[in-house]
Structures are given as structure tokens and as C-alpha cells.
């Protein structure tokens, strides 16, 4: 008891040492890490997560862009020109540009404030691909909005204008690397309207969560018959060559299988049931891929899923703790892929 407590404490101590050593290796982290953490905490207090967000002064930030700083430089040069030549018209131009620089941020801010963003939904994606979210942006006032950029940095994202229409749906995407449920980082909405000298932006958390399937990695041809039929577990496949029994006809049974002879003899309508003893049903089994690591196994299974669906072969899935009966069709595929995506991660 005491020993285990001690060892736990000791492990913690070593971990904290390691943490410190990593800080020593990269001294900048010493400053940036706490700052980044504080920034995130501050942002989450100031602009909390929600599926529908209206932009306002507490969420929007505004600063001059590089071009804006260049504009200030030009103002400085003009002031020097006016001072040295004692030229009042150059002064007037200088002060006009200064005043424009003062007026601009109001316009830039007005271009974003009052916009309402709403998450409409997300579509699942494969790891290594781009996941896409559908977002609706609308304005409630009459002001025209222009040149709004919505993105997950460093992606280019999407640009949109709200001039004639008051609302627009857009799709923006971000690359996803890991499978599972992936919480998207804060979305960046920014605008440089009207002259590009100021950038107004906000980092909003629309509570975007992607379902990310494993990355499909080829694992050879589909493993037909690779699964040993054991006991009475699902080895019988209906629709084979050998007659097995008569059963009551149900609407939808093939007319070729109707027992016309018996029907002619005045009995009820029966259909002949055939079954196959050779089990050709496709099981995508965790155990088939023994010896590879978890993620690779899942990736390979994912690849097979896609292949089977494409070739129209009925397939099922066996994972530790999950069994999905063989079937076919989009909803079946979605179920399979979701199971693969949500398979517990190693170590968690």
C-alpha cells in the first residue's frame, strides 16, 4: 500500500521533471505556453461555445494590417513633405488621410458586428481528408456586408458577401488527421472591408464536431472465406442451391421459388427455401489482421468496407466488443464506419 503510493508519487515527480526539461530545451515555451493557455481560457470565458453566435463588441477584435502600417508610413512621409516645404495643401492631405485612418475601423467593425452564425451540420470525413461544416450566416439589419472570410487557419476558407441577400449558407472545410470525434478549433471570421487597412476578426467556437473515419489503407483483396465457421454462428446463407424447406409465402418472395406444385394441389401458397452450406458471407474481422497495430487494423478494415460496398458484396464487421451483422447499403456502411471511427483509442 505504502509502496504503491510512493511509486505513484515518484512517477508523478519524474513526469513533472520531464515537463521542466522540455521547457528548458525550448525556453520560448516558458512564456508562450502559459500565455496560450491563458488566452484560451480568456477566450472561452469571453466568447463561449455555442451553436449559434451573434457577433458583437465582446467577440470582435480589430487591428491595422500590414498595409495599414504602410499607410501610416505614407502619412509620416507626407507630414515631412508638408513641414519641409511649409505647404498647407500637403498638410491638408496628410490630415485627411489621418482622419480616414481614424474613421476606417468603424466601417470595418460595422461590417462584422450583428452578424449571426449558426452551425447547420457537419458531414463525416476520412482521416487525412477534409471535413466540411455547413454554416449559415445572416444579418438582421439592412447594412450591406462585404468580403467576409470564414476559415480555420491556416486554410484559405471561404469568402462571402451579404449584399442583396440577407442570409447565406456556406461550406468550409478543415483537414482532419485523427479518427474519432474531433472537436474543431475555433473558427476565424475576419474582414478587411473597406480599404484593407484594418482587419477585424473574431475567433468563434460554433461547437463544431466532426465524425472522422479511419484513413482507408489498402490491405489486399477482400478476405473471402477467411473466417472459420465455428459452431452454428451465422454460417448458413439463405439463397443457395440446396432446397431446405417450404415456408409460408410472404409478399416479396421470388415467384421462381413459389412451390407451384403444392399450390396446384390445392394447398396454400408456399415458397421453397434454399440454403447454401458453403459460407461465402464476408466478415471483416479484427482477428484477420493480427500483428498490426490498432490504427492500421482499423484503416484496413475501413478500406475493405469501402471496397465491399463498392462491389455490392454483403459484409459484416467483427471488432472486439462490436459485431455488426452482414448487410449492404449506405446506412449499413455508415454504421460500420462509425463503429470503426469510435473504436476506443489505444491508451484511453
Amino acid at each position, binding site marked *: 500500500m505504502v509502496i504503491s503510493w510512493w511509486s505513484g508519487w515518484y512517477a508523478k515527480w519524474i513526469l513533472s521533471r520531464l515537463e521542466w526539461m522540455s521547457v528548458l530545451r525550448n525556453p520560448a515555451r516558458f512564456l508562450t505556453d502559459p500565455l496560450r493557455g491563458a488566452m484560451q481560457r480568456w477566450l472561452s470565458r469571453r466568447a463561449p461555445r455555442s451553436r449559434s453566435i451573434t457577433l458583437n*463588441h465582446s467577440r470582435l477584435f480589430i487591428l491595422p494590417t500590414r498595409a495599414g502600417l504602410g499607410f501610416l508610413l*505614407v502619412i509620416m512621409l507626407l507630414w515631412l513633405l*508638408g*513641414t519641409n516645404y511649409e505647404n498647407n*495643401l500637403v498638410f491638408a*492631405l496628410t490630415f*485627411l488621410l489621418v482622419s480616414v485612418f481614424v474613421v476606417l475601423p468603424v466601417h470595418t467593425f460595422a461590417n462584422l*458586428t450583428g452578424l449571426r452564425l449558426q452551425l447547420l451540420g457537419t458531414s463525416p470525413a476520412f482521416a487525412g481528408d477534409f471535413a466540411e461544416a455547413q454554416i449559415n450566416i445572416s444579418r438582421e439589419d439592412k447594412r450591406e456586408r462585404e468580403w467576409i472570410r470564414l476559415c480555420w487557419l491556416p486554410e484559405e476558407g471561404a469568402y462571402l458577401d451579404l449584399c442583396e441577400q440577407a442570409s447565406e449558407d456556406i461550406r468550409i472545410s478543415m483537414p482532419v488527421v485523427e479518427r474519432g470525434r474531433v472537436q474543431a478549433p475555433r473558427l476565424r471570421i475576419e474582414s478587411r472591408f473597406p480599404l*484593407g487597412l484594418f482587419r477585424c476578426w473574431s475567433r468563434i467556437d460554433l461547437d463544431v464536431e466532426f465524425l472522422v473515419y479511419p484513413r482507408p489503407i489498402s490491405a489486399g483483396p477482400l478476405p473471402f472465406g477467411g473466417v472459420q465457421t465455428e459452431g452454428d454462428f451465422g454460417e448458413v446463407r439463405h439463397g443457395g442451391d440446396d432446397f431446405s424447406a417450404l415456408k409460408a409465402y410472404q409478399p416479396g418472395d421470388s415467384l421462381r421459388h413459389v412451390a407451384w406444385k403444392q399450390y396446384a394441389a390445392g394447398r396454400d401458397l408456399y415458397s421453397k427455401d434454399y440454403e447454401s452450406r458453403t459460407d461465402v458471407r464476408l466478415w471483416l474481422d479484427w482477428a484477420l489482421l493480427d500483428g498490426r497495430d490498432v490504427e492500421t487494423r482499423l484503416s484496413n478494415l475501413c478500406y475493405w468496407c469501402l471496397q465491399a460496398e463498392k462491389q455490392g458484396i454483403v459484409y459484416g464487421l467483427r471488432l472486439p466488443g462490436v459485431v455488426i451483422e452482414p448487410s449492404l447499403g449506405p446506412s449499413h456502411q455508415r454504421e460500420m464506419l462509425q463503429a470503426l471511427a469510435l473504436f476506443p483509442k489505444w491508451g484511453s
Partner: protein
Amino acid sequence: MATTQDLLPRESLLWIFAAQFVALLPQFTQLPLWVPLAWAFAVYWRLEVFRGRRDLPGRTLKLLVILLTMAGLAISYRRWFALEPMVALLTLSFTLKNLELVSRRDAFVSLLLAYFVAATLFVREQTIPYALYGLLSVVVITAALAAQLGSFSARPRRALGLSLRLLAQATPLMLLLFVVMPRLGPLWSVPQVTSAGRTGVSDSMAPGDFTRLSKSDKPALRISFDGPIPPPEQRYWRGLVYSEFDGRTWRQGVGVDPRNGGQVYWKSGERPLPQVGPRYRYQVIQEASRSPWLFALARPVSDSSGVGETLDDRLVKHSPVYSRFAYEVRSWPRGSRNMSASLSRAERNRNLQLPPSGNERTREWAESLGRRGLGAEEISARLLARYNREFTYTLSPPALGSDSVDEFLFGSQQGFCEHFAGSYVFAMRAAGVPARVVAGYQGGEWVSGERYLLVREYDAHAWAEIWLDGRGWQRVDPTAAVSPERVRDGLESAAGEEFMQDSLLPLHRVDILVKLRLQWDMINYRWHQTVVSFDSEKQRDTLQRLLGDISPLRMALLFAVPCALLFLGALLWIWCSGRARKLPAAERFYQKFCQRMARAGVVRRSGEAPRDYALRITREKPQLASLTQRVTSAFERAAYGGDAEAAKELRRLVKRHFGLLDLASVQVDKLKQAGR
């Protein structure tokens, strides 16, 4: 590396070229022809690149182009420290930038440079048309900046409208800054405009010079008086004194010309002021003449900076007058400010100088007068009487040969002011009286609305001064002896039909146009008085008028009050602009409930249905189960069923349980639980 997003679209390029064209157009007229051609070529090349027919020039080609333009500049100007080559250099770098106009960043650099190019226009000229044109270029450049964002903003009407709106909103603050911002003097010496030809009275006088000036009605001086106004026959605006004659041309001469050894007193305290006060106080606004001569009544003193006094009683400027220049002058009455009662030997010799030979007849005639022992005044009177009897005043005198004075005095006997002044001084010198020619303007036209005197180029005049022992330099105007109207009423009445005869359109004969021209001149005068010559002194006056007294507190108030008001307005607007629409009452109360639950430890997950949330609360906090049940069912009925009663119930539930005592009620629930 520029990404595809950063590449310039078509409308962006066209806007940049439009802004460049507007900023460069007035410069093109001043620059050598090859500069605008280079610009047009660069634009053409860039458009060809846009169409995909050509590549952007490579590094060697660019280097070659830069070397070529530098060589071109060196050949065209031969000097660097002047305004024109600087502007040409700026224009060329602006032009060459087009050959590497690739990304949005390049576009910004080009447009920011355009503002600067537009401003250099004002260094050349500060008149109203130029100011309006400068404003136009700023509107276009700002519109081009707006259009850089593309799509909707790039439409011409939208971009120009946006630009106009921004500039209009910026104007009030601009005016405030214009009045309040302190003006420092020049920080270092800067190159000036040098190339344009000199206008007005020049530093030498040959027959025909003043006839040329008489054909121009351009304004030269505008003079406003503070106090008494001199009568017309006293309005002699002295600018230059010519002492040296070479037989044809009168010059200032070595030791008189301030650029050639003449002494100038630059500080106003250098020479003592007389006991009596000045007779006239006035301000002169002089048009650009590109020479340093200033014009004032006799015996002037000026406190304006950069203005000095010479020994021969006139004012000069430190550097040539390259743009309109205003100076304050006080002039003293005769006798009060005669610096020397006697003429020094050198002065006397200089003012008796004559070329060694030529004009023998005049010399003889004058010497005969001198030999008879007549005084200076009598000789002058005889000469003037001769002018009066036999001579005519004309704007188109016949050409004169090498002995110009002889030919004029004994031959043609027709002349303009320079003939009379020149021959008079020659004759006086020959007779042994020190004399000199003075050039400047005489007269002027009242612009009644503003009470200022407008002196035009055709008012240029030359007269004489003779030295009278005991009385000093005395003004004599030989022209007045021939044509008194010239001095009293101006050139127009003196010359009659000849006045402005050669001008393309005889506009001076149309009465209404003359009035309109005077009106326009008045507007120009006001413009110059209020805007162009607004210096630190006028700034102080204006502020004093506005504030009563310039204290830091009042200055702060003047600046801070409008700023604070603007700021407050902006804050209010910002506060209101971002407010979301109000949620329905049921939603609002339910959200309040969710908040309270979150505080109690059960946070509603995003997208979680109310019923699921209620189940979870029941599971995790059984003591809140009944309340949750009631709230949830009331909310569902109110929000989805539109049940008004349910809405009221929800409100009551939330208010009662989560008023100030919400936490306490949770505690009570807990106690009850424990008691059971």
C-alpha cells in the same frame, strides 16, 4: 510566394492604372516626354502579361530598364538636388513598379505611393484648381484601394461612392487637425522648383523688356493695408535698382546685387529704427517669380522671416520666390530713415558710371547743361520739360540701334517707361548728377470687396532716382512728365487703344468678364489668405479668436470635447449594433434554468433535448427531480404548444426557485433528503 488568392484580378489592375494615371497626369506636362511614354509602355506590358501573351520581365531585363531610366534622368536633368529630378525619380519608380505588379502587396505599395505622387503636385502649385484636382486624385486613389477587395466593391459606382463617403466622414476631423496641429518650420533644406522660366521684372533692363511685361495681365502682387493707404501717385513698388549701364542693358552691378557682394541686413534689429512711427503698414502676397526680389514702398522694414533689407532701400528674400509668398512691411515717411546724409565716394562713382563711349550727342547735350552751372533739380526739370513737349508715350516704340539713348532722345522720341527712365538716368549722369534706374510696379487696381490692391504684370514700371545733396535720393518719374495718366490711372488709360492689343481675345474690353475676373481674383486672394498662408502665427490668431485665450486647458477642451463626443457616439453604436434579437420568453426562462443547473453541477450538452437533459438531472441530482420535471414540462408546453398558461407557470417556477434564494433552496432540498 503569392498564392492564387493573392494574384491581381483584372478590375484590380485597371483601378490601379486609373489611380496612377490621375496622379501622374499633371506631372506629365512637366516631365520630359519619355517619362509618360515609359509609363504607357509599362502599363501596356502589364496588360499583355494579364492576357497571357507575354511574361513579366526577367531580372536582367529589369536591371537594364533601371539603368536606362537612370541614364535618361541624368541626361534630362544633369543635376539631382532639385525638385524636378526628384519627382521624375518618384514617377519612374512608380512606373517601373508596374513591371512587377504581381501580388496584393504590390498593389498596396503602388497605391500608397500614388498618394505621395499626388501630394508632390501641391509643392509645385497651391492654387484652387490644383487643390481641386488633388482632391479628385485622392478620391480616385481611395476608390482604387477599396476596389482591391474585389467583386462587389470593384464596381466603379460602388468604389467611388465608398471613397467619397469615407472622405466626407473624415473631413470634420481633418479641419480640426488643420487648425490645431502645430506647424514646425522646415526640418532640413529641401530641393526647390528651379526649371520654370522667370516671370515679372528681371534683374536687368534692356529696351523692350517692359513692353513684353505690358502684354501680360497675370497678377503679380496683392497688397492689403492696415491703416492709411497711399494715394495713386505714391504707389511705387520698388523691387530692383539698376546702377550699371553697358550701353544697352541696365544691371544692378557688382556690390549692389545681393547675389554678387551686395550687403543685406537679414535681422530686423540690425539697423536702428527711427523715432517716428511708420507711415504705412501693409501685407504683400507675391506670386511666384522664381527670383528673390520683393516689392515694397520706399524705406521699408519687414519682420517676416527670410526677408532682408539692402542698402539701396529695398527688400529681398533669402531664396527665390518659388510659390506664393506673403510678407508684412512697414514703410517710413521721407526723411525719417535716410541712412546716410551724404553719398560715399564709391556710391557716387557707381551712380555716375557710364560706358566709355557711345551716345555722344546725349553726352554733349547734358554736359553743356552741366557746364552752365545749373543745379541737379534744374537739369532734371529741363529734361522733363523736353520730354513733356516733344515725346510720346507708346506701347509699340520703334526699334533702336546701338546708340539707343541718342536715337531715342534726338530721333524717334517715342517710347515706353524703360526708354524714359534709361535716357533720363543716362543724361543726368552725363551732366554729373548721381542717378539710378529703379524697377518695380506702379499703381494697382482696387478689388473693392476685399479692400486689397491687385497689381498685375502690366503694371511693371521703371523710373529714376537722383541724388540731391542734403536731401538724399529723390524719386523722379520721367514717364509721368509725358503721360501723367500712366501714374494716376494706370496703363490701361495711358495706352488707350494700344493696351493689350496683341492678346488673342480682347477680354479686357468686355465689362462683365472684367468683373468676373476680379471676382475670381478675390476668391483666389481669400483662398491664399485662409488656406495657403495659414502659418503658426495665423494659427495662434485663429485659436485666440476661437478660444479667447490659448491656455493648455482650453486647447485640450477644443480637441478633447469633439473627440470625446465622437467616441461616446461610437461606443453607443457599438453597444447597440451587436445585440442579438431577444429570444421568446419561454426560451429565456428555460436558459436561466439551464444556467442554474449548470451552477449546481449538471451542464446541458450542446444539442441535448430538454427531456434528455431532465432525465440526466434526475439521475445525477435526485433532489432536483420534481422541480426539473415541472419546469421541463412547462417549457415544452409553452414553447411547442404555445400555451400561455404554461409560460406563466414556467416564469413563476424559475422566479420562485431561482431568485436570490436559489442556492438556499438547493440546500433545503439537500437537508430534506438527509432528514429522510
